[in-house]
C-alpha cells in the first residue's frame, strides 16, 4: 500500500524533525523588548539586589520573554521567566539556554532558573514585599529564597 508507506515516511520525518535539539532557540532581537513585565528593586534598598536587576535587564534583548522576576542573596539567585505562549513548545530548550546564559553572566553566585508559573507568582510577591519594606531582613530573605528554590525543584 503506497499510501501507508508515505504515511510512515512522513511520520518518521516528523519524529526526526521533532528530535532536532537546537541549543540556541532564542535569538536576540534588534530592539530591546519594552513590553516585558519586570520590576527593579531600588538601589537605595538595604538589600543588594543589583544582580537581580541586571539579570532582569538582560532579558530585554529577547522579544519572546514576557515577564522576568528575580531575587538574590549574596550567594544565590532565583530567577523565573515567562515566555510567549507559542514558545512554550520550546520551553525546555529556552530554560536551558537562559540558565546557561545567566550562569555565564554571574559566575560567582549559584543561579537557579525556573519557568514555572508558581515560581513567577511567588517571586513577584517577594519582590513586592522587599520593595515595600525597606528593612526587609537578609535572614528572612535567605529563608524565603531557600523555600522557593526547594519548591522549584519539587518533582512530585
Amino acid at each position: 500500500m503506497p499510501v501507508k508507506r508515505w504515511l510512515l515516511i512522513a511520520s518518521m520525518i516528523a519524529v526526526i524533525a521533532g528530535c532536532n535539539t537546537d541549543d540556541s532557540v532564542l535569538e536576540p532581537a534588534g530592539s530591546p523588548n519594552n513590553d516585558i513585565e519586570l520590576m527593579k528593586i531600588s538601589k537605595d534598598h538595604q538589600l543588594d539586589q543589583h544582580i537581580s536587576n541586571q539579570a532582569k535587564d538582560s532579558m530585554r534583548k529577547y522579544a519572546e520573554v514576557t515577564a522576568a522576576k528575580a531575587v538574590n542573596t549574596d550567594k544565590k539567585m532565583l530567577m523565573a521567566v515567562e515566555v510567549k505562549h507559542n514558545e512554550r513548545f520550546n520551553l525546555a530548550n529556552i530554560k536551558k539556554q537562559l540558565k546557561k546564559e545567566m550562569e555565564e553572566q554571574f559566575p560567582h553566585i549559584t543561579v537557579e532558573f525556573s519557568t514555572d508559573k508558581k515560581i513567577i507568582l511567588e517571586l513577584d510577591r517577594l519582590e513586592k514585599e522587599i520593595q515595600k519594606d525597606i528593612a526587609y531582613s537578609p535572614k528572612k530573605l535567605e529563608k524565603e529564597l531557600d523555600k522557593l528554590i526547594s519548591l522549584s525543584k519539587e518533582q512530585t
Partner: protein
Amino acid sequence: MADKKKKNLPPDAQEYQTFHDKREVKRPILKNCIKAFLVGGFICFIGQLITTFYIYFFNFTEQTAGSPTVATLIFITMLLTGFGVYDRIGQFAGAGTAVPVTGFGNAVISSAIEYRTEGFILGVGSNMLKLAGPVIVYGVFSAFVIALIKTILIQWGGL
C-alpha cells in the same frame, strides 16, 4: 477478505449482504470525531482550570499540580457517574470522554457500582478493575518499552 467470505456464502445470503450493505446507516465518523474533539477538549479545559486554581491558591507548582488535578477530576467523574450523567455525556461524545483520565475513572467506578450487589470482596473488589486493568497493564508495559528506547537512544545516539 470480505469478498472471500462472501463467496463461501450461499447466493441468498450474498444477495442479502449486498442489500444490507446498501441500506446500512453509515457511521458519521467526521461528526463523531468533531464531537469527541470538542467534549474531550472541554474536559481538558476544566482540568487546566483546576490546575491553575491549585497553582494560584495552594502551594503547588506546574510540576506538582498534576496529581491533585487528576484526583479532583476523578472525584468529579465519580459524582457524575453515580448520578448517571457521565453515561449520557459518553453516549454523545464517545472517545472524547473515554480518552481523558475521566474515562478511566468512569470505567472503574461504573463497574464498582455494577458489582456492588455481589459483595465487597468477590463483587466490587474483583470486578472493579476488569475494564481498567488492561489499561494499567499496557500502560506500564508501553512505558517500559518507551523508557527502553529512550535509554538506548541516549546511550548510543547522544540525543
